[in-house]
């Protein structure tokens, strides 16, 4: 041997062997297609990456129930808790408790205050999304008239942030439009339907409804149809293709916007695993089977929102 250029042996990385990571993923609520799709993605990632994924959410979008679920995960001594928070502040104590037990905490879909978690995985840039959804509505309404917003809950950080930008965009670009009411629906289809019905009754000159919870737009379409105002009231917002496919195909709604919740679930588990491995994230980093992500400080943005229209809605199955 003449020259040895071998570097000193690389440190054997972490605890790959031995135990599998257990990652607890908590959605805002169980039983709606959006989070069901997210669960699918999370479980797929769990299989691909060989980690144990526990997915459990409250029956209603309520922070107290989430807190209980988190408590039970702390009892189970999971390695990481990823929560889509129903309240940015109130989940703080239980998350801190988890951190004290050595459990890593991150948020996805909906953030808490930055102090309670290490990482937030956002689907889209909230400003970009908020303004874009407003643009879609304005285009449907001819940029004038009354409109209402149906949100999930005002407490949920993501929803309230989007709403900020929705309103900002309307005020800046569409002065002919007027927000008449913003109602909470707790991500509940039944409540959404009732809320939509009420909106149509209370505001006879209502020209558009923007649903910022995935159950909002279908409920609004149903309500408008039942009220005989199908086609007269423009409905758009955030919803899944599966919920909206029928309405879009028949023309009750022209466009809804969302991202792939499957992809979000997959990304959440992928990044949870990286966090447990101690690797740091870089802006523009490629995540397997997801694509490149944006990283700003402790926030990750998955990608751009997708508009589902009659032309493309058949391509999506969530």
């Amino acid at each position: 041997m003449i020259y040895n250029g071998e570097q000193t042996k690389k440190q054997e990385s972490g605890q790959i062997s031995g135990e599998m990571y257990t990652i607890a993923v908590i959605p805002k609520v169980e039983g709606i297609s959006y989070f069901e799709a997210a669960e699918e993605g999370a479980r797929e990632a769990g299989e691909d990456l060989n980690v144990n994924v526990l997915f459990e959410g409250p029956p209603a979008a309520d922070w107290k129930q989430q807190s209980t679920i988190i408590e039970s995960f702390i009892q189970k001594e999971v390695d990481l808790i990823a929560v889509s928070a129903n309240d940015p502040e109130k989940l703080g104590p239980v998350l801190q408790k988890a951190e004290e037990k050595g459990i890593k905490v991150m948020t996805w879909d909906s953030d808490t205050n930055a102090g309670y978690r290490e990482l937030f995985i956002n689907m889209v840039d909230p400003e970009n999304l908020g303004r874009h959804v407003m643009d879609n509505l304005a285009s449907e309404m001819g940029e004038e008239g009354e409109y209402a917003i149906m949100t999930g809950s005002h407490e949920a950080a993501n929803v309230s942030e989007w709403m900020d930008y929705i309103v900002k965009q309307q005020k800046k670009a569409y002065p002919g439009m007027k927000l008449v009411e913003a109602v909470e629906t707790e991500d509940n289809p039944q409540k959404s339907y009732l809320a939509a019905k009420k909106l149509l009754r209370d505001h006879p000159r209502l020209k558009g409804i923007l649903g910022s919870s995935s159950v909002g737009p279908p409920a609004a379409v149903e309500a408008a149809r039942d009220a005989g105002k199908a086609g007269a009231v423009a409905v758009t917002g955030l919803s899944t293709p599966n919920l909206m496919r029928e309405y879009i195909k028949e023309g009750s709604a022209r466009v809804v916007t969302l991202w792939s919740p499957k992809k979000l679930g997959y990304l959440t588990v992928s990044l949870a695993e990286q966090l447990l491995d101690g690797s740091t994230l870089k802006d523009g980093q490629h995540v397997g089977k997801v694509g490149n992500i944006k990283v700003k400080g402790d926030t990750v943005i998955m990608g751009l929102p997708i508009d589902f229209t009659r032309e493309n809605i058949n391509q999506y199955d969530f």
Partner: protein
Amino acid sequence: MISKLLENITLKNSRLSTKLIVTYILLTVIPMGLLGMLAYYEYTKSMEEKVGEYIPKLLKQANSNIENNLSELEKLPDSIYGSSDVMSILRDSSLKTQSQSYQEQFVVESFLTNMYLDNSSEILGAFLVTEDRAFISTRIPYEGFKPENWLLPPSEKPAPGEKVEFMFPGQTGLEFEGGPPYLLLKKQVTDVDNRKTLGTIFLAVNLAFIEEVLYDVEENENAAMWVMDKGGQVIFHTDAGEIGTLSSEIREYPLLNGSFQAREDGGRTLISVNQSARHNWILVHRIPLKDLTVGTDVVRNATIFTFLTLVAITTLISVFLAWSVTKPIKRLGRAMQEVEEGNWNVSIPIQAQDEVGALAQSFDSMLAEIRELIEKNYTTELRQKNAELYALQSQINPHFMYNTLQTINMAVEDGESDTVIEMVTLLGRMLRYSLSNKDRLVPISQETAHIEDYLKIQKYRFEERLTYLVQTEADADVYAVPKFILQPIVENSIKYGLEKRKGLHIEIWVEEMLNARGEKDIVFTIRDNGPGIEEETLEELKAKLQSDPMGKRDSGFGILNVHARVMLMFGSRYELQVESFAEKGTEITIQIPAISKNEAAGYSDTQEDGEGK
């Protein structure tokens, strides 16, 4: 061990010059040879080390270039996600009419052409394979496209799909016209939104870019370079025939980043390797050592030439040295041999001042000494014999015999029978003394008795004209004397004394005395009142005694004979001395050591031994 022993033995028995030559040569050739070899070895080694350190660095650079290129290429398949047209066609699995199907085919293949073939000249072809369709766009004709084989490598499970996989021509069976070396990049196309696998894209990448990188590293045509994956699958090789083969050597490599020597069919080679960090591709550079050390060959040849020259010179010097040392010794040896053969007059032609010269000189002087001793012993013996012969002769001196017989005759005529009896008795005794010549030394009493007998006979002849006295004061029976040392002197004295004088008185004294060294000597003094010896004659005689005691047999021979015998027998410290004054007489003294009879026997014997030689 044994050979060394043999060498020792043969050296021991060989000639000195051979030994010297061998020693000199060994002393010079071995250290020079070792030094030369060491220098050459170290030089080559340092050269190899330098190159061995330098090439891996180049390789590392080249390998990272390749890896960068590869990383760029790896990103290419992802650009398909950018085309919503293509994505929607792929997502749509519903039944279509023939025309729809062809339209979609057109859209996707156009995309492949625009995206891959038009953008990157390195892409030979792009293949997008879905469950039921294949979209293909290539730069040059191809054959052997069997995607069903590509999708399921026999041994492995389908990979998770996120990573770009590499496939080699051997694995695919795909061949492009002109046979350019290529690599197939395989990547699964995933619908990230719907979480579905849409198909697989294959990009055939021309490996010419590797060649360019490698060309920058090495221009030596004897060097081989190749790229292989960690399993030994050769991805690219400067020898095109090797591409696609499986290299088994890799298992024998002691390391994957660095360089080492290996022995191959063609001799020793220097192999340098570098493994890239991400793909674990191994870049290998192999060059025969002899190509590497072309520069050192000059050094080696110069070293060998110098070495040989020095060996020749030192051999000459050693031969000359050995010759110059052994030649005088040989000459000395020859001289000695000549001496051994009996030639004592050898001249030794060595003038050197060194040890051999000293030896030669010693030998020369020893030879001279021996010559002298031989001369001396030889002549001494000869002259002693002569002297004794003369002494013997003088006993039967015809004149004396005649004169004595004449005297007896006259006494017979006168009827003096008593005188006759007396004379015959005396003569008889004298003859017997002469004949009893066995002993060289006799007691003093015998010698004095003999001289008295002689004087008595002469007294009968010359009657009153001759008177004599013999006086012995030494212990005449104990001490010995050489025979006939008195008679020649007395004869001489009578001869000259009675020639010119009417009467002659002779006295003989025998005395003991101590010489200068405190030893006892015997001194014989013969004194007469004859005519003496003339001054000139005396000087002449003394000179003869000094220089040539063995003079010719002329007058005075008797004295010289005695002197010679005394000197020869007892050494030059003992001698005969003559004092004479004209008209007054002569006194001759003979001094000899006091030798007892016992000693005399030994003396005689020694002399006998000397004679025998």
